């Protein structure tokens, strides 16, 4: 089994959003309004009804008390003031640890696995968590983390060394690291596959000539491979940050933000405030913050695309 893209689909067109592949389509006559309208209408209706209109509504509602999801009393920036003075989510911790460790492990596994014959097997094993639902991932790891040493593997292993069972998900000082570890376990395969493709795109002669010149393996890694995969790493980093901002299912199933509010992330807070606490105005403000945080990345995407179209 090979994880590497195969020629069936022109790999770069599909496997990475290849923005350089833009060629102006040559069209024969003048503008064809009827065709354009018919082909675009279904998409346009859905985008307006489900994305554009709700975004505007949510922005407006975020300046309202909005107890029942309707406009009742304008409160100015109150929801935002509350959100920033008492933020009850810890995405920053995720961004710092999850993003860096996923990239680090992904790069190590990509480089090391390339030296053995069973590379594709290792990559497939590490990639499996990407295929399954975050809900299933949550059940798998709740099981591993079980405080009962007859059930939870982790406490059973520690028990062999005389450590008494730890409540991994029940201790507010541990819970976030336990969750981030699950997130890392789930995402390393993705990083490995992306970085493996990047590492392999480095021409063999370049590495070989460095070896001939007497460079050792460490120098080759730090002076050659690392700089050459820095662009894929930054794209991957952006993707992982977006993952963190949208992270919900794993937290909802594993801890529901607990114990207390210790493991809440922004997408969970939005859901909880709006649908459990009925604070639609505040929930909207949280959703708007999610949107605003993602805007620089949107601008980056559009810019990247336009540059590619011009050249």
């Amino acid at each position, binding site marked *: 089994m090979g994880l590497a893209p195969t020629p069936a689909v022109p790999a770069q067109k599909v496997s990475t959003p290849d923005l350089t592949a833009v060629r102006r389509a040559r069209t024969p006559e003048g*503008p064809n309004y009827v065709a354009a309208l018919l082909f675009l209408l279904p998409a346009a209706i859905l985008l307006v009804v489900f994305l554009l209109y709700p975004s505007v509504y949510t922005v407006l509602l975020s300046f309202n008390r909005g107890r029942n*999801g309707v406009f009742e009393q304008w409160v100015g920036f109150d929801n935002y003031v509350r959100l920033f003075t008492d933020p009850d989510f810890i995405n920053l911790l995720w961004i710092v640890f999850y993003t860096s460790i996923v990239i680090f492990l992904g790069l190590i596994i990509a480089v090391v696995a390339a030296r053995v014959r069973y590379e594709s097997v290792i990559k497939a094993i590490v990639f499996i968590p990407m295929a399954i*639902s975050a809900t299933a991932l949550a*059940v798998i790891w709740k099981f591993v983390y079980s405080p009962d040493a007859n059930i939870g593997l982790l406490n059973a292993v520690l028990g062999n060394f005389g450590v008494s069972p730890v409540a991994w998900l029940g201790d507010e000082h541990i819970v976030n690291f336990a969750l981030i570890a699950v997130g890392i376990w789930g995402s390393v395969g993705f990083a490995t596959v992306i970085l493996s493709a990047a590492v392999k795109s480095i021409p063999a002669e370049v590495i070989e000539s460095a070896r001939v010149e007497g460079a050792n393996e460490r120098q080759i890694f730090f002076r050659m491979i690392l700089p050459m995969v820095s662009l894929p790493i930054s794209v991957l980093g952006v993707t992982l940050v977006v993952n963190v901002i949208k992270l919900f299912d794993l937290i909802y199933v594993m801890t529901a933000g607990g114990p207390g509010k210790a493991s809440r992330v922004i997408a969970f807070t939005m859901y909880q405030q709006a649908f459990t606490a009925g604070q639609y105005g505040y929930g909207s403000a949280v959703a708007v913050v999610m949107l605003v945080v993602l805007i620089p990345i949107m601008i980056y995407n559009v810019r990247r695309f336009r540059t590619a179209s011009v050249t």
Partner: protein
Amino acid sequence: MSVLAEPMAGSRARTPAGRAVAALNRSVIHVALGLIGVFWLVPTLGLLVTSFRPRSDIQATGWWDIFNLHLTLENYRQVLEAQGMLQAFVNTVFIAVPSTVLPIVICALAAYAFSWVRFPFRDTLFLIVIAFLLVPVQVAFIPLLTTATALVPDLQLTRGYVAIWLAHTAFALPFGIFLLRNFFITLPPDMIEAARIDGASDFRVFSTIVVPVSVPAIAAYGIFQFLWVWNDLLMALVFVQDSSKYPMTRAIQNLLSQYGTEWHLLAAGAFLLMIVPLIVFFSLQRYFVQGLLAGSIK
């Protein structure tokens, strides 16, 4: 083969000591990769073994106690029948299939217009679609629920599947249009112009030329979207309000909150949820990985 697979021993280690060091290096690599393999397999395998162990055994010893292993299908029978997971499985199919087919059709149509139909502001509109790529679903929850209730209280969209079909479809569009348009635009212009000179309408060009030659790209997108919906919990929490229509992700979440320590049920339930994605992964790996990598922008 990779440049890095080049054994270090080959070019430089010509002395016996050098060869010994190289062999040692290689065994360190094998051990490290072995540990990685174990670390990524064991949690899932543990749950798989547990799903076949009788309840009394699970409560007495850990799954790693393989010398006292008794296997049973009772857990699966119980979770499928008594806990309604069979119904939930069917519900998941009911949600996932239209939520995959609709986006494919609508995205392909729009992508065709963005690549082969000429109209004003085409590129500007396409950039707006790209900007929509990252809009989080959270911005849509409150307006959609309140407006749907206010406008059509009798329809009760969230009681059925219509709400979740449309929500999944709408949020799949920016990525699907982006992906398919980037594929369509690489098709040879001569092929399309020749058909037009022969008098083919746009719809004919679309359905008899563009779609048939784009099957690999459409398949990659379809598989990605299908698994995305299959694995989703959040949208189902918001847009499926009738408990008899819950998909598996919600059913398992319910099991967990009701029977948090009944691992015989949870393990079997989790594997029923995982089985389809795992089959897709192992049988359609190359499409799957392509779709997922392309989806990294989503």
